[in-house]
């Protein structure tokens, strides 16, 4: 019996790219709690899952529900209140300052108290001194924090991270793992990554994908220790 109260529920999700089935009847539930990891090798379907759940990609079959609401039936605006995404390459808006990057969406949505929240977020993420800078003046780690603030200011129920540690050095990567645990009280963090070392520091549970399916779910031990046989030695 599926849990109708699950925060995020993916049910029989199938996605085609051209004629190729890239997601094959994926079902997954994420209850509110610690950061959740979705791991898997390149081509396992984890990025497709991420794009389908955040509404960037049309799904062929199945449903995605967040807080019981079908994502596919929502407008972009309503969807943004439920789910956010921090891109691997951040995708900050280069023509806007940090402050305007964070405030563009809430201003357009007419969100009350957004600037107070934005100020608090910038302080918590320790980028309040960068508010008037433009993206090209920031380091990779700083850009990522701006992208996190830009998503959090909309107060989504779930916030996805696409390969967040890929472009970071070891120290910044450690700091990020700590940060993700910290912001877990604001939103459900879901990390899509194949960086096991990072996952071990940031998350406590997750799912493993392979060939367009969820093959394992549970604690880190269950999803990380068993390497599929086609994986190259690390």
């Amino acid at each position, binding site marked *: 019996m599926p849990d109708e109260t699950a925060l995020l529920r993916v049910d029989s999700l199938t996605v085609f790219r051209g004629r190729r089935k890239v997601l094959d009847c994926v079902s997954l539930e994420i209850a509110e709690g610690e950061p959740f990891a979705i791991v898997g090798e390149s081509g396992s379907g984890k990025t497709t899952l991420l794009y389908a759940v*955040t*509404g*960037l990609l049309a799904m062929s079959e199945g449903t995605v529900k967040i807080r019981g609401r079908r994502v596919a039936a929502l*407008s*972009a*605006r*309503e*969807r*943004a*209140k439920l*789910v*956010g*995404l921090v*891109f691997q*390459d951040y*995708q*900050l*808006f*280069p*023509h*806007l300052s940090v402050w*305007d990057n964070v405030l*563009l*969406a809430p201003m*357009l*949505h007419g969100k009350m108290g957004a600037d107070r929240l934005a100020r608090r977020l910038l302080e918590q993420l320790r980028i309040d001194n960068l508010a008037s800078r*433009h*993206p*090209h*003046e920031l380091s990779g780690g700083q850009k990522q924090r701006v992208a996190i603030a*830009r*998503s959090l200011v*909309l107060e989504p129920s779930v916030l996805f991270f696409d390969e967040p540690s890929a472009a970071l050095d070891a120290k910044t990567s450690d700091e990020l793992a700590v940060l993700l645990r910290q912001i877990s009280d604001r939103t459900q963090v879901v990390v899509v990554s194949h960086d096991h070392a990072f996952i071990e520091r940031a998350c406590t549970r997750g799912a493993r994908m392979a060939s367009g399916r969820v093959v394992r779910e549970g604690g880190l031990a269950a999803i990380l220790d068993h390497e599929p046989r086609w994986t190259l030695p690390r």
Partner: protein
Amino acid sequence: MTRPLRWLALLPILLAILLTTSRSFASGETLRVGLSGTYPPFSHFDEEGNLAGFDVDIARELCAKIGRECEFRVLPWDGILSALLARKIDVIVGSMAITEEREKQVLFTSPYYESGAQLFVRENAPAIGQRGFRLGVTLGTTYGQIASSRFPEAEVRTYKGDVAILQDIQSGRIDGMVTDRLVGLHMNERYGAGLVPHGELLFTERMGIPVHPDERQLHAELDHALRELRSSPAYPRIRARYFGDERAGVAGGAGFSWRTSLTLLGRALLATIEISVAGISLGIALAVILAALLLWAPALVARPLAFYVDFIRSTPFLIQLFTVYFGLPAIGVTLGAWTSAALVIAIHSSAYLAEVVKVAYQSIPAGQRHAANTLGLTRREALVHVVWPQMLPLLSAPSLNTLVATIKDSAIVSVISVHELTMQAQQLISTSFRPMEFYLLTALLYFAITYPLLLLGRRMERRFRAKGLLHAG
């Protein structure tokens, strides 16, 4: 957020409004009189920049007699009949000889003066029967045919006007010209042209005033007025004003003044800027619409549009100009010279800029639209607040370059009588006969407006690059 750039987006729209609200030519009780303005002493511009000459005075007398006001339109001689037939003008009072061929197309009044074609040669010219003798005539005149048939040995070259022929005679490029005897003598008197009349008159011509074949009423009125004028004391008075005693040559015009010439050039420069900016602004607006259709319209619309853009880019500006100005009246759309010129500049530049706009749009990474989407922005909001502001830096330099090219190319629109810098320079040269000074000065004036624009373009590019908004060159 995007405040410093926002005015840039509004600029084309404002100027397009300006374009559509200004400059509507109405023809009520005025009589639109066409002439070349490069045929002294019959029609030319005096040192004040005003039209003057025998034809002009005759036209004014006729207008007074039929109770209408003269509105003079200066047109190149080779296009003046087309302009009459396209009803851009009502009459031509421009020393047009009555010929059988022309009478098939238009109605001529009785002649208002008689003259004759004369061969003039420069001093030290080679003998006329010799091969390689080079002869100049004005395009669209009766002199062209007579020169070819009477001097079969000579190489006949055609020009836009007598002044241009005289310039080539003086520089030794050609050896002689066939023109009206009175005009040749006037040029000797006025410019010390040193032309030597050679032989008898080649033929005599009777000059009449053509009107559109459907304007029988106007034709009758003018013919009546002309007969009255020729028998009145006003006619010999006008004749004496320009030709005095014919054997003694032609009375010289007023003196030359740099001050008034510069004022006139300055005014014409403003006209050049005005028409270029209006044309380009409308062009940018059109280009954005075109690009949007090329990107998003269904193939049924986008394919023909892509072909249209290629077509405009593959045809000469001059032909497009003539099509709009002379061609459209045939299907009932008559636009003034200024409006036609601005419209063609807009159409021409929009074809180039549409491609630039399209490429600028495509160069914004899809990730930017995805990011806007996950933040809950609608497609319109993403376009206005995320994509368009990033396109502007990519558009600014090509737009400025197109503006510079347009300002330079706008010289062409003088052929449909738009009074701009190049036309003003030619008029000043036709009265002052100082081609070197005025062409150099005109070039400098063009440079004075285009160079700062080029510098501005470079500065904007540097600024955008510093802000991280421009990556590839």
